[in-house]
């Protein structure tokens, strides 16, 4: 059975391998070019000492070199964001739909091998190379982004959507979700084009939906600062909420009212010390930030991935049903 699926998907596997080699070579070449450019622009120190640079770095942190490469890395991240969807649409959805559409399922179903085994072999033999390709691309793009250090996309921490989504187990989870969704949609409707369209649509909707409540999947921590006007150092945490506390430690709810009163209509004319004094007179004692701390990154990845894993299990069960269903 393994040989049959390999033979059927031979063109796909060759395409995948060629695409992967070109993709990895391209990303590694870009990475080397970028490192050279940064060194040439005098930004080398930032790359070597990421932790101490604190986001402000080199002679000209907002220089043209940095802007150019940030845009290029952004494209790399977008490619990675699209990969799971591409796997679902172009590999998952046609996996069974094409057989049903061309009538070749009747060939497979009329041999003595069971439908479930046929389905499972097709699924696994196709999924493994697709996953390998996504993971290798994740490593390649990841190493590129890491090479830019804190003057690249990582400067705002690893909770930023474009970084988080391409980090840890997330790409694998999205790919599994997209692939199983594709196979299910294809097996259910038995139409390649319909399966592909549905896969893309449902993938985008579910990904956006889960992203919209991602912050509620992690355990938040309240960080209180005794000086309400001190600027907090970046600690890689994901700040969800922030504000001022009164002497009793309660959150000040009429914050806008206070700032309106203290700052006035023209912020540029205001004196910072007078504003601070005015704030304190209105009961502001401390400031707080509600964050998902940096060390909770891994568990947030796992929490989100488990949602996609659960959906994938449902889709696999649905595919088994759809394949074994008699019309």
């Amino acid at each position, binding site marked *: *059975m393994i*040989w*049959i699926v390999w*033979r*059927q998907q031979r*063109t796909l596997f060759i395409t995948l391998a060629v695409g992967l080699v070109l993709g990895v070579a391209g990303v590694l070449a870009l990475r080397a070019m970028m490192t050279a450019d940064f060194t040439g622009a005098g930004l080398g120190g930032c790359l070597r000492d990421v932790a101490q640079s604190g986001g402000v770095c080199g002679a000209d942190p907002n220089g043209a070199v940095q802007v150019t490469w940030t845009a290029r890395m952004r494209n790399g991240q977008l490619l990675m964001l699209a990969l799971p969807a591409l796997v679902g649409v172009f590999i998952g959805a046609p996996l069974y739909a094409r057989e049903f559409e*061309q*009538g*070749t*399922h*009747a*060939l*497979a*179903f*009329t*041999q*003595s*091998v*069971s*439908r*479930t*085994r*046929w389905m499972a072999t097709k699924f696994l033999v196709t999924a493994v190379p697709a996953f390998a390709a996504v993971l290798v691309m994740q490593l390649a793009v990841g190493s590129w982004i890491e090479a830019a250090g804190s003057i690249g996309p990582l400067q705002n921490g690893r909770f930023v959507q474009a970084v988080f989504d391409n980090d840890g187990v997330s790409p694998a989870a999205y790919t599994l979700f997209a692939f199983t969704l594709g196979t299910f949609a294809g097996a259910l409707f038995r139409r390649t084009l319909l399966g592909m369209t549905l896969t893309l649509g449902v993938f985008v909707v579910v990904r956006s939906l889960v992203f919209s409540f991602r912050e509620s999947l992690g355990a938040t921590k309240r960080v209180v600062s005794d000086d309400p006007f001190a600027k907090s150092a970046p600690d890689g945490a994901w700040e969800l909420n922030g504000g001022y506390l009164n002497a009793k430690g309660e959150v000040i709810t009429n914050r806008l009212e206070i700032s309106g009163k203290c700052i006035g209509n023209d912020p540029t004319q205001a004196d910072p010390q007078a504003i601070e004094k005015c704030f304190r007179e209105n009961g502001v004692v401390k400031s707080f930030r509600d964050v998902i701390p940096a060390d909770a990154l891994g568990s947030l990845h796992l929490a989100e991935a488990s949602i996609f894993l659960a959906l994938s299990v449902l889709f696999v069960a649905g595919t088994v049903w759809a394949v*074994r*269903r*008699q*019309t």
Partner: protein
Amino acid sequence: MLAEALGKKYSRGWALRECSLEIPAGRVVALVGPNGAGKTTLMGMIAGLVRPTTGRIEVFGDTPNGRGMPSSVSYLTQQKPLYPQFTVTETLRFGKNTNAGWDQAYAEELVAQARVPLSAKVGTLSGGQRTRVALAVALGKRPRLLMLDEPLADLDPLAREVVLQTLVTECRNQGITVLLSSHVLAELEGVCDHLVLLSAGRVQLAGYVPELLKGHIVLTGPLETPCPARPESIIDAQTVNGARIVHAVAHPVPPQHGWQVHQPRLGQLTLAYMRSGGSTEVAA
């Protein structure tokens, strides 16, 4: 193969209704009926691809289901599906890998008989060659029941002859039960020994061919004298070249001037039943 009160309803209506029949092992069965009579639906249900809406079906004592096909049954659908990008050798390897009782030597011999080049891609073969490869896959499985849906539909007359002869010889030699469907009985006349005639989703006529022929008569006579057969026994009457030809269920017919009684030919009898279009339901 046994079917009881089998029915299948699609959203557009019933494809098969109240179909009860029994096919004894070792026969070459012709499943005949006009387009849309329910031939493919019946075969799909025997193969387990289609779920019956009503009734039950049994093949060698098992009920077909959606899990997989029993190794004793081979089914070649009308489209003769094969992977077009596979070569003939690879197609046979597909058969070997998906069937426990696969007979590689036999399958190769069937392909060699058809003079199909082994290294050719299936997609590049002619209709006749494709059919021969598909038959090799179906027979290489060494089934006890072989079902072929319109196996000759896209073949030229010579290829039909060759394929049919190969098929019947192989099956007779090995005692395989064959179920062949066609909307043209003429193709199968002479090779089948059992007939199932479907019309508008119902079994109109079914039985062992010699018994069917014995159970019917054909009367020919002039237009001006009335037909001597009993009216309720008449299946169909037509006028050809100024003479009446009447098909009827066999019964003693009083002699009448100008009328002759013969044993019908299978093709004509089937056509007579098809023309009568289900108004008479007779099972012999």
